[in-house]
């Protein structure tokens, strides 16, 4: 992934509960609020609002979450004369199953990347995002997602970086290649490429060998009776 993740502030997950004096229970549902850096738009209000242009991919590492849903809030579009438009929350990803069986281990610590294809609609111009985690099984003490990152675009489209030269030289050791290289070299006026190359490699080897065996012990230049005495240094 060459793209750097989008800047956003991810709040701690909040456990949703239905509080009642008699019936307090673990609902198994958590919400993570994601807001974006504030952008003040000059033409509307002076109050800066959280805003994100586009989200192409959402990546995270699962930790025992069974289902995940994503809802996005669109930028409030001001109507003529009104101060703010309607705030809409739309569900972008509806109850995506992360663990095939909520009681069992599979999928519990997997890495997931939700791409554009899995979104119900293209996420653009949003002001906030909510990620809803659900874990109906009482077996797990704790569930969450880790290392959540949002990317602007799906990275599948960009080409992978070209391989370095030393990796693509698959026929480097074949005799035919060697002969070709030698004739090419002779044409250029380099009669003994092999011996130059092997000498250079030996020089490299010698230098590395020497570097490894350098002494790390101290000479004790500034040692005075085993301690570093600043006052004594000043007198000399």
């Amino acid at each position: 992934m060459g793209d750097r993740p989008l800047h956003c502030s991810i709040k701690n997950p909040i456990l949703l509960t239905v509080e009642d004096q008699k019936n307090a229970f673990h609902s198994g549902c958590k919400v993570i609020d994601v807001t974006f850096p504030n952008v003040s738009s000059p033409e509307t209000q002076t109050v800066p609002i959280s805003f994100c242009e586009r989200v192409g991919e959402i990546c995270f590492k699962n930790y025992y979450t069974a289902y995940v849903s994503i809802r996005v809030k669109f930028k409030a579009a001001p109507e003529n004369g009104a101060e703010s438009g309607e705030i809409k929350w739309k569900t972008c990803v509806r109850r995506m199953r992360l663990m095939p069986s909520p009681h069992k281990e599979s999928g519990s610590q997997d890495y997931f990347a939700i791409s554009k294809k899995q979104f119900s609609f293209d996420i653009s111009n949003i002001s906030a995002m909510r990620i809803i985690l659900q874990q109906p099984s009482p077996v797990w003490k704790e569930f969450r997602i880790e290392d959540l990152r949002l990317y602007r675009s799906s990275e599948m489209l960009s080409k992978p970086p070209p391989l370095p030269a030393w990796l693509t030289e698959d026929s480097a050791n074949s005799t035919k290649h060697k002969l070709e290289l030698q004739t090419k070299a002779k044409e250029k006026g380099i009669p003994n490429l092999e011996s130059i190359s092997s000498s250079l490699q030996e020089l490299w080897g010698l230098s590395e060998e020497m570097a490894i065996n350098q002494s790390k012990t101290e000479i004790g230049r500034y040692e005075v009776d085993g301690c570093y005495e600043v006052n004594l240094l000043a007198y000399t």
Partner: protein
Amino acid sequence: MADKKKPNSADDRPQETDRQFLERYSIGTLMKDVLGKIVSNRPKDPITFLSDYFDSLEDQSNLVLKARNIIEMTHHSRPVFEMNVRQAYDIMLKQKVGKRLYGVNGTSYTDLIKTLCRDMPQPVTTKLLKKIECLDYEAITFDVFKSGVFTCCVLQDYVKLCEMLFNSLDFQSSGKVDKILSDVVNEQLKAALANTRTDARKIVEAGYNLGPDGLFYALERGMRSKSQLGGQTLEQFTIEICDAFLSKVKFNVY
């Protein structure tokens, strides 16, 4: 005149057996030493080794030379080398440094380094000393001694290799190498040495750059640039290539 006193002859002394004669000059110990050294050092040319050893026995007075001869008995890659270095250090410990003070100080250490490097161009020795030198009055521990001596021995090999490389690059056997080629080669070597030792990918890259393929492309690029920078002699070439080596030598830790 039958009673003429016989002149001084060997008969004056009581008849010595062969054994006593040998013991008088401690030839036995001498031979034992030499045989022991030959077996542990396994020189490529034992006869030369023997003659050098007996020559060096005359330099008994100069501790530094004695130490040097011991160090040069075997190649630095063999395990016996470390024992020889320890022996050399022990010999130099007998050096008198001050009143009733014996040991290896900066002066004798520097002398030893200089004599080990006697076959190298002077600028190389100066640069090396700048890195590993110790002040004259400082006491040298065995670790520092060993590291300095080892560096010198490896540098000796390095300088010999430089000469071989010079002859390979000297395509027309003119005694001089094109400065362009020398620069290209130097650059490749420095790039390889600059890489950190632990990064596997960089090591493979460096290996490729110094192999025939990478080297060919680099040399071709160099030769394409038509600028004429003149030639370099062996000494100049050696000095430049040794720069790459010396860059890996660490300064003495305080």
